[in-house]
């Protein structure tokens, strides 16, 4: 899902960068208001953890690649979609600059997909599902699954707009594979949140607060 340089024309990359910068500014506002002495290590360790999760790249049919995203995990643990944007921005910067995993001119696009879409879908679907199901594992699983699938579909649409991959084939390939990857993402997210809430309940802020920063 990490689109590399050259796959999106420079002018489209610039548009995505501008949109991403708006959300990055909001995420920075979240960080200024919410990131206290206690939360900073959690934010940093979540970023490193998501980096590790995203390291497991799996090849997808039709040539695409799939991996876990982690947007829902960050948003749910820290209780805000802006936390996911902040954390995913850190992760994507390190991945792009150190490993060449995801491009520089398309960093804005990748932040929109995994941070903005992943974070918002993960957080609000979790909140909505919690209201309906009253079950934390079910809500977390479904939220993480959606937060993996929808950014992948957005990626396919962006590649189509860029003219580097046809829409139907891209949606089918990315959709099917990320629907499967999403199941793993859901299980991992449930396991991680369950373990953290059991071992260190003080660390988790399961969407109790309304998201600030916006």
């Amino acid at each position, binding site marked *: 899902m990490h689109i590399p340089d050259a796959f999106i024309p420079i002018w489209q990359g610039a548009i995505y960068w501008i949109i991403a910068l708006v959300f990055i500014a909001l995420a920075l506002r979240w*960080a200024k208001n919410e990131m206290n002495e206690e939360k900073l*290590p959690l934010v940093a360790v979540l970023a490193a*953890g998501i980096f590790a999760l995203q390291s497991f790249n799996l090849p997808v049919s039709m040539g695409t690649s799939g991996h876990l995203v982690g947007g829902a995990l960050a948003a749910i643990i820290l209780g805000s979609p802006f936390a996911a944007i*902040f954390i995913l921005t850190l992760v994507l910067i390190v991945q792009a600059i150190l490993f060449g995993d995801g491009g520089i001119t398309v960093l804005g696009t990748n932040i929109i997909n995994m941070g903005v879409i992943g974070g918002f879908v993960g957080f609000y679907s979790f909140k909505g599902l919690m209201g309906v199901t009253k079950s934390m594992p079910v809500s977390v699983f479904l939220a993480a699954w959606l937060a993996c699938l929808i950014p992948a579909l957005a990626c396919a649409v962006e590649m189509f707009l860029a*003219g580097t991959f046809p829409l139907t084939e891209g949606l089918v390939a990315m959709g099917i594979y990320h629907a499967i990857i999403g199941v793993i993402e859901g299980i991992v997210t449930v*396991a*991680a949140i369950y373990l953290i809430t059991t071992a*260190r309940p003080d660390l988790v802020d399961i969407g109790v607060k309304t998201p600030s920063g916006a």
Partner: protein
Amino acid sequence: MIESLFQIERDANRDSVIHRIDARVKIAIAFAAIIALVAVPYSTMIYTVGAIFFAFFCILWCFTGLSPLVFVKRALAIIPLWGVIIFFQIFLKNKYYTTYDVVLSLPFGINIYAQSIEFAFILLVKFAVCISFIILLSSTTKMQDMLEGGARMGLPAEFALALGMMIRYLFVFGYMFRKMNETLKTKCFDAFDRHLSYRYRLRQLGYMIGTMFIRSYEQGERVYTSMLCRGYGRESFLFVERKSLKGPEWAFLSFSLLFIIVVPVAVWFGQYRFF
């Protein structure tokens, strides 16, 4: 990826003319080269621009004192993943061409087009040369220097602070990952062993990820507590000393940026078209 982290940092800790250049200069040159390459339209002129940029990269790499194998290994770890998408381009039509000539017809109505092959090569050249500059940057710049360089170039303080801590945790995660892998191996646990129930394997992996997270967090928390003891507070930010670029660094930066701008423009006007 997390395993190659240690190798990248070892390469970055070596000493050479390129290693000693200020991180800001290397970041600016790498980013400028990538932006210039991406800005070149999807046309065959990228072959010339790409060849000249790659020659420039090779000259810089020679001064790093790193083996070409380091570059080849790292490139091979990145390129194949998206190389498959590039390969599939040969079967697809795109909006950048109006007419398509069939080179080869395959069963099930699949065709390979001359223009699609050309487009695939254009993508490959752009992608490969962009990746080369990222490999050069990360193989010759320590993470801490990169962070300080970024902070000096205007990276917001919140990002710089969190990135600094994240980089530390990355190594903690790396060590934890190794240790836990060894522990599982001594217990003869294999996640791909079909004799074990799927549920059991998933549970073990879930516990491994969660434990890795908590152990890394607690290790980091101890480091962080010691930071607090030494006077760290909410208003503290990463201290980055002001540092001016030296004369030779300015000269190298100016020459490189000029080169990066002039080459595509010159090729655009067709004066130095080699292919």
